[in-house]
């Protein structure tokens, strides 16, 4: 599994596409968090990074499918998937390796945003007047969100042999699971609306993004990851049916 992980990881970072994708991610978050007056921390005037955590799901929606799109689709197209699958590796190891590689890459993209924390820390009145523990919690929430999006992205990639289609399916899939249920809930009323919205990621990410860790949200996130990865496995095995 580690070999797969390493291979995927290096393959991504060696392609110039990676730098374009990560660069666009950093420019977009940078502009939203620091420049655009409607969302910037500077115009908000309070020492927290809520902007980043509210915004990140929307940027992840594009970033993560871009990372995951090639995982299976490319191998299928190049025919290397047969080679890979006939190796003495279980399906689980292959999927796990590729998944973890994508997940870690997404986390890597977040590392430069730690600079935002440093800046807000410095700009606080008095200096350092930021709720650090809450920020750590929010980052944890963001990491979990990345984990879910990566799993959905991997599934999308396993369903097709075209990277572009894998990307689009992943974006649409992530979007639907993220906010589709919320939209559906908004046309319903009362009790059902509450339960429907609970099916979506947004309802569970909301708490986590504030630094509030709820065991139900954790269980939900791990479940969605598990379902998506199991579905990926199903998609791979279906070739033998």
């Amino acid at each position, binding site marked *: 599994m580690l070999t797969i992980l390493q291979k995927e990881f290096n393959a991504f*970072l*060696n392609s110039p596409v990676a*730098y374009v994708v*990560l*660069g666009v991610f*950093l*420019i977009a978050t*940078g*502009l939203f*968090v*620091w420049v655009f*007056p409607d969302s910037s*921390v*500077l115009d*908000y*005037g*309070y*020492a*927290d990074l809520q902007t980043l955590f509210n915004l990140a799901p929307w940027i992840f929606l594009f970033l993560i499918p871009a990372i995951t799109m090639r995982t299976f689709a490319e191998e299928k197209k190049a025919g290397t998937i047969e080679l890979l699958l006939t190796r003495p590796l279980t399906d689980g190891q292959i999927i796990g390796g590729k998944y973890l590689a994508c997940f870690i890459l997404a986390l890597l993209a977040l590392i*430069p945003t730690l*600079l*935002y924390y440093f*800046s*807000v820390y410095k*700009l*606080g*009145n*008095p200096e350092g*007047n930021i*709720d*650090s*523990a*809450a920020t*750590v*919690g929010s980052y944890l929430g963001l990491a979990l969100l990345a984990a879910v999006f990566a799993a959905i992205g991997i599934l999308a990639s396993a369903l097709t042999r075209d990277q572009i289609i894998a990307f689009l399916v992943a974006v649409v899939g992530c979007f639907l699971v993220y906010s589709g249920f919320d939209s559906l809930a908004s046309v319903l*009323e*009362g009790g059902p*609306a*509450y*339960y429907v919205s609970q099916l979506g990621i947004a309802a569970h990410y*909301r*708490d986590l993004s*504030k630094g*509030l*860790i*709820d*065991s*139900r949200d954790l*269980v*939900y996130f791990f*479940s969605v990851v*598990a*379902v998506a990865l*199991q*579905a990926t*496995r*199903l998609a791979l095995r*279906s070739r*033998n*049916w």
Partner: protein
Amino acid sequence: MENTLNDAPLAAPVAASRKQRDLLYFAAILGFLLLINFVAQRFFFRIDMTEEKRYTMSPATKTLLRDLKQPVTITVYLTGDFPPAFRRLEQGVRETLTEFQVYGGANLNYIFIDPSAAGTEAARNQFYASLIKKGLKPTNLGATENGKRVEKIIFPWAVVSVGGQDKNVLLLRGNQAAAADVRLNQSIEGLEYELASTIRALVPGLRKRIGVIEGHGELSNAQAGDMLSTWQQQYDVYRVTLSKVPDLRALDAVVVAQPKSPYSEDDKFKLDQFITQGGKALFFVDALRVDLDSVSRNGVALATPYNLNLDDLFFKYGLRVNQNLLLDLNCGQIPLVTGMEGNKPKIEPMPWQLYPLINKFSPHPITRNLDAVYLKFVGNLDTVKAVGIRKTPLMTTSRYTRVLPAPVPINFNDARLEPNPKLYQKGFQPVAYLLEGQFPSLFANRARPGTLQFQPEKSPNGKPSKVLVISDGDFIRSEIDPKTGNPYRLGFDRLANTEFANRELVLNATDYLLDETGLISVRGKQITLRPLDKVKLAEQRRRWQLLNLGAPLALLGLFGAVRAWRRKRRYARFAA
């Protein structure tokens, strides 16, 4: 691709069983995960990572919401395009309501409605009018946006509906004397209490009974009218004549509102027995009689001590209501004729030090984050020793206070004089005390008045109680609208055209005295204000923007370059 039994009789069972096995396995995992999620809904924990535990609801709130039997709908009108400080308040409301939903579940629903969302000007104004008609008073907001002054109308209100009943909640509270963002922060701190207590008031439950004592010249139904109707939303309120009831056992609390004639020993006995057996009491008592009519007629009048025959009772409970009047430089105003304009008298509001404005409160749940309250002719309170009684001063006058012992000459002309600050050196005189504990009976080891029945030293079913004493009877007296004869809202000052927080304080106090769930303690919630350094922002804005935009990209570029270089070297070595 599917094999049917007809096509490939030999291969089919194998292929089908593999597919079946995979699908079955997937279904089993799905089922297992659903089960886990289902169980997790029942048994869950929440870790609040924030420093001040801002998202942690109090046990009282949680119980209230878990025990909801019917749907509660909360409509919030505070949303739209706001300056940041108000966005923060809106955010606070959202956060509080999402937290509420965690415990209230499907029984708790909320919606946000932007009152300014209407497409046309006319439709918007019509909607505004419909909100105002519901009693939601808008706030005019002057804010600076991109260097321009903009005027905005906002409705800082939520409406809580339970079973067809509505109640409005004002979301913008706090001390008006504080800076705007401090005040908004105080509003955020108060959200949980305001919303939870409103829900509680609407959800049918056991209503507590309050008795308002009469028979000693206490405030009339009209004078105490606003407070009585405010109480009635949550409590059952009765007027009680002490001489006509054997005891007060049927009540949970009694209110003594500005008595003017003495309490008989028998009346006092009933009060004392009620309190020593756990009954709660609110006293609004004046030590000195001020006859304003006489002042207007004669130009001057003496404020002389009342004889209420309650002093020994208070003394036993650890308090002395002093026979003096406090003059405070931080005060309200009275209208005075300051001269003639043609043949019409010219009337101007003048500061009147005998009407102190109080904004010095203790951080107690009753008074925390309260706006200023209005007092009229108030004396100070002293504490004396009383075993087992905890005494909390709830509010004091300002630093610039003068104490005049009785008899005090009251003269309107004094308002024309510039006060001499040297005389106002007695600072911070307490005017409200909260007493808590097991109250000793005034009649212990004494016979019940009018009988030979001796009272035990310790009341047999004595329970701890709470008593609030405010040394100003006017505190819960509403001004009467001269046109309609109806009382104004308590704390409304016609001259200043503002409403002071008297009503809120009394309501908080009643909640504190009568509430066994401890919901009122939620008012102690604290949220740290974390502003950015405005000076630094103004000076170094560009620098921070550049840093945060540029540095991550530079880091990425560097990372890529190092990788490329290392790869090149590695493959170069291979080639060599």
